[in-house]
């Protein structure tokens, strides 16, 4: 046994390997991505690992493996579970043979997501168990428990870490591996085919299982009851750590209930409520534990005040912090939780919004479309990926962003309402494969006038450069046939397709201009690799003698490598990647490339 410094996502991966997982699938999404990557990194060859094309596909592949008796795991971020919700809802009615764990990472804040949804609700909606770790070391052992419960009940289970578990590191005691069983194989049986009659009988079984699981979970070691008194704190996830921190700093004592599972451990919670006057519920995202406690008090006629998000004692949006829970616990226990150190007025601090990298090909693509569409009544529908950052000034080229693949389809609805406007939709290469293709088929089939700009940077950039079907590299290290976006679009019946390198700004602009007056679906494929996957040996410099200080390079591009001092622009050589776009926009001819 040894201790290792592990990130929560690494702990989940190593825990799953220890538990004998043999098939792992997923789609990248912050804060979940490193789970699958870590499995792939530590794969001794006995585990099948893939980045799937989207979360629905990933969940179905993992389900098939579990049908055949393998332990399988599927990883995604919380909004990915929305994409996978169709198989998720039915799978509980069918069941699994091998243990199957669906890791869906929630993102309170949100730090890098479009919603603050709570996967525990998905568990309740789909009538599935949810495991909710509070630390990386707990996640390491809890993932084994998740596989065991999944097999015991013959159903998939959800595993829901949050960002502060996924992306925090801790010293984790590494345990010996567990014996791995060979999967039995798929055994043909009518139970694998869902029909209304089977759904009805299985629904009854599911409800019975939920009651049995709640009883089981009242005995589960990671659901815990400690402390004493007439006040109690109920908590779970990373908020449990914050509550413990607060109690230690305040020298406070009260009953403390840690809830790590759905179904809610009702019997344990009843022992917690016994003798209490009031409860503070400290949890993140939705008031799930809070509502369970209120319901329990109603069912059992208990007179206990429940305070939490519904009463305004815990904020109902955003991430909890060690300080916010400290304040809430202090107020609840009637202890002074003032922070005694208040620095004097700070000077104004710079704002550092996320921005497209210096040299990002998306900047060039947006610039080409922006200039080509100047003076035209156009709407630019965006999508999910690095290119969402094209909304920032000065580019200002993202008018809508909803969810994966929605840029292409929202543009179609906009067109149906205002046919005279020109509708552009932007989609990245990985998003194209994920959910972009059906939208293009829909537009071709329904003869919709839109211009789809596919920003192909040869990677899934936002989440840290994962491969996708267009690249031909797999997570097993093999090379497969690259799936050509051009040929896919062509096969869908799009007759107007232009491939262009966006760094060739003048040609790119001309290409966009040429398709604007046309009708039907037009596709422009902007092809240039992400700066993280391609290096350039040229850097650009500004000749200060020629620079007129007009700021065009700054106000048109918003490139982080260009700054402005003493009435002249300059390029930071450590950030410049040699993309050349600034040289194209400079009216004074002051910017030139230098080969290193």
């Amino acid at each position, binding site marked *: 046994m040894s201790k290792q410094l592990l990130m929560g996502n690494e702990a989940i991966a190593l825990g799953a390997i220890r538990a004998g997982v043999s098939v792992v699938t997923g789609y990248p999404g912050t804060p979940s991505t490193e789970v699958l990557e870590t499995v792939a990194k530590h794969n001794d060859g006995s585990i099948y690992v893939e980045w799937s094309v989207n979360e629905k596909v990933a969940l179905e592949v993992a389900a098939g493996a579990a049908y055949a008796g393998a332990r399988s795991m599927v990883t995604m971020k919380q909004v990915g579970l929305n994409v996978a919700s169709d198989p998720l809802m039915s799978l509980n009615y069918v069941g699994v043979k091998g243990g199957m764990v669906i890791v869906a990472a929630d993102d309170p804040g949100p730090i890098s997501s479009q919603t603050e949804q709570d996967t525990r609700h998905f568990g309740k909606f789909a009538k599935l168990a949810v495991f909710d770790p509070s630390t990386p070391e707990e996640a390491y052992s809890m993932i084994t428990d998740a596989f065991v419960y999944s097999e015991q009940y013959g159903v998939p289970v959800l595993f829901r870490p949050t960002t502060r578990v996924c992306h925090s*590191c*801790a010293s984790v005691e590494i345990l010996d591996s567990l014996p791995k069983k060979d999967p039995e194989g798929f055994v043909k049986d009518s139970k694998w085919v869902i029909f209304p009659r089977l759904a009805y009988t299985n629904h009854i079984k599911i409800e019975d299982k939920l009651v049995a699981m709640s009883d089981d979970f009242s005995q589960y070691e990671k659901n815990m009851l400690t402390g004493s008194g007439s006040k109690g704190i109920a908590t779970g996830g990373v908020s449990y750590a914050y509550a413990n921190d607060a109690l230690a700093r305040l020298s406070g004592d009260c009953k403390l209930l840690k809830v790590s599972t759905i179904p809610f451990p009702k019997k344990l919670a009843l022992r917690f409520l016994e003798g209490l006057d009031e409860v503070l519920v400290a949890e993140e995202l939705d008031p799930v534990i809070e509502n369970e406690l209120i319901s329990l008090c109603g069912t059992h006629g208990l007179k206990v005040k429940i305070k939490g998000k519904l009463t305004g004692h815990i904020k109902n949006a955003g991430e909890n912090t060690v*300080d916010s829970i400290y304040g809430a616990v202090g107020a609840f226990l009637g202890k002074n939780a003032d922070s005694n150190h*208040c620095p004097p007025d700070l000077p104004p*601090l*710079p704002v550092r919004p*996320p*921005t497209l990298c210096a040299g990002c090909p998306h900047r060039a693509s947006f610039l080409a479309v922006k200039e080509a569409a100047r003076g035209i009544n156009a709407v630019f529908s965006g999508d999910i990926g690095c290119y969402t950052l094209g909304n920032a000034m000065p580019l200002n080229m993202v008018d809508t962003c909803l969810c994966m693949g929605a840029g292409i389809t929202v543009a179609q609805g906009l067109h149906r309402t205002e046919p005279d406007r020109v509708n552009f939709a932007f989609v990245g290469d990985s998003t194209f494969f994920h959910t972009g293709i059906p939208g293009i088929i829909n537009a071709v089939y329904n003869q919709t006038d839109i211009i789809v700009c596919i920003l192909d940077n040869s990677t899934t950039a936002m989440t840290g450069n994962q491969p996708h079907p267009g690249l031909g590299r797999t997570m097993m290290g093999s090379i497969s046939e690259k799936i050509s976006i051009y040929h896919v679009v062509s096969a869908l019946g799009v007759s107007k397709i232009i491939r262009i390198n966006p760094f060739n700004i003048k040609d790119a602009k001309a290409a966009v201009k040429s398709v604007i007056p046309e009708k039907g679906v037009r596709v422009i494929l902007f092809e240039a690799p992400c700066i993280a996957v391609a290096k350039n040996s040229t850097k650009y410099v500004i000749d200060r003698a020629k620079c007129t200080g007009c700021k065009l390079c700054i*106000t048109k591009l918003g490139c982080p490598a260009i700054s402005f001092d003493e009435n002249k622009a300059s390029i930071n050589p450590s950030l410049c990647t040699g993309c050349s776009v600034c040289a194209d926009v400079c009216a004074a001819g002051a910017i030139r490339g230098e080969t290193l």
Partner: protein
Amino acid sequence: MINCMIAGVGGQGTVLASKLIAAAAMRKGFDVRTTETIGMAQRGGSVVSHIRMGHHIHSPLIPLASADVIIAFEPAEAVRLLPYLAGGGQMIVCDTAIKPFIGTNAENTYQASVMTDYLKAHVARLTMIDGDALLAQCGNAKTLNIAILGAAMQSGAFPFEADDLTCVMKEMLQQRFWEINLASFEIGRSMSYAK
């Protein structure tokens, strides 16, 4: 328990620095917890790492007014973290400003001297590192993070020895990067500081 924070701008190598500190503390038998902002706050955004070293640590986040040590790779980011500094805590600050990209918002800029003057007036235990001199000696912006760790080591910021840090550097970095990083670490340790 020792609470240490690292502040910087995306791309400066704060995440590696925090991993090295955590690993060195584990060599000394401490348990550690760390957390940081990643995700959308990638290149060019403010990055903050929390590192807690000790025993029975609950939260990965360090509470306000509780950081024993703040190492800032950039002066404005140092000021941003000041509410976290414990009474009597120390700060190690590299004085080279990294200006935010300006776009169309020309007001979004600042002078490094405003930040360093403010820190000098409000932080009793302050080590200010001359970033230009450090860069000149290292000859490479990529290992400045390691050089700043060296300076922090020499300021008594850590509950471990320099050897612990050099050992974990060898464990965590590829061998071809050892020489340049170990050299930068020594440069940081031997720098004379402009207070």
